[in-house]
């Protein structure tokens, strides 16, 4: 009977649901990096320990700049594979957490939620990053603390203002450890915009410049 044969042929295309299983070696991975590393790459290895082929139909990342790469989507029993997750830090610092939810064929619910944790340890802290005065305020100096963090020694080479009407004076409390910047406006009679560039010597191959924002509104 042609109908029977055709239907059976069609049915074998449908994924087998029973006996499908992936075992994930390390679904949670922790890293410590510096901002200059720019990104971290985590390899989430898995193996098909079930009795039928498993197809990964899609992944969903928690929002953010994480890409997930998969060589192919279907794995036969006994076959191993890995999802390579690359997380670009951008200007993010501190503890970061990105999750990747993996969905397999035949299951409506997610198969696993992969957890990628990175502590992007910033070597240098500028606090606060913004100083402002309202028009008519007393043009008093405002203080900004610059501190080396996470065991780094960061030397401040200079602090320059982009606007001559907003002056910046650098004071060294402890070389390579702590500095202060005194920001003083010439006057607060009108709106002003200024950026203070803090030049450092770290990292040696590409020293970073930090920005302090000053506004008179």
């Amino acid at each position, binding site marked *: 009977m042609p109908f*029977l044969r055709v239907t059976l042929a069609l049915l074998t295309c449908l994924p087998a649901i029973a006996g499908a299983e992936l075992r994930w070696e390390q679904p949670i991975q922790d890293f410590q990096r510096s901002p200059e590393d720019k990104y971290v790459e985590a390899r989430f290895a898995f193996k098909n320990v079930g009795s039928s082929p498993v197809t990964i139909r899609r992944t*969903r*990342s928690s*929002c953010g700049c994480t*890409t997930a790469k998969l060589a192919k989507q279907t794995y036969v029993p006994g076959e191993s594979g890995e999802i390579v997750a690359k997380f670009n830090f951008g200007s993010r610092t501190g503890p970061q957490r990105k999750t990747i939810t993996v969905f397999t064929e035949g299951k*409506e619910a997610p198969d696993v939620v992969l957890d990628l944790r990175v502590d992007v340890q910033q070597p240098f802290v500028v606090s606060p990053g913004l100083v402002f005065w309202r028009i008519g305020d007393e043009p008093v100096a405002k203080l900004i603390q610059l501190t080396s963090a996470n065991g780094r020694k960061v030397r401040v080479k200079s602090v320059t203002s982009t606007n001559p009407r907003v002056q910046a004076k650098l004071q060294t409390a402890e070389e390579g450890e702590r500095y202060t910047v005194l920001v003083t406006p010439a006057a607060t009679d009108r709106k002003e915009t200024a950026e203070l560039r803090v030049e450092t010597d770290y990292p040696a191959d590409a020293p970073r410049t930090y920005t302090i924002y000053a506004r008179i509104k």
Partner: protein
Amino acid sequence: MAGQIVATLLRVGIGGLFIFAGVVKIWDFDTGGSATQAFALEIQNYQLTTWTASIVAAIYLPWLEVLAGLALVFRRLYTGALVMLLALDAVFIAALSSAWARGLDISCGCFGRSDIQVNYPEKIGQNVLLLALLGLLLWLECRKSRHASRLD
């Protein structure tokens, strides 16, 4: 006779599939809450509807799926259920194709050049297969009723 068994298996199988698909769009078993808002956001991702229309669809469509699925399993309002599911599937294929044509990333609701991109050909292919199976069941039903009327 064997053909009859296969047809029944198809009917019950596809009916069950739609019941399950509808239920998970109504209730999120993982977090124990309503799944409607998440579904509305998914619909919104296709950028074919207004937000209000997405909410209405997110509330109504799952129940259509569940009832049509039940109708298939219990063979009640059978023809209508097949027509309904054919229509729903056709609309879904059209939406997927539209999203594919516009290069939409519908897999991540938020911005994030993340994820394996939704495999459009695969997803569309699966639903075309489903459409074909539904069509097959409908054709069988037509043939059966024509055959029955010829016996009168």
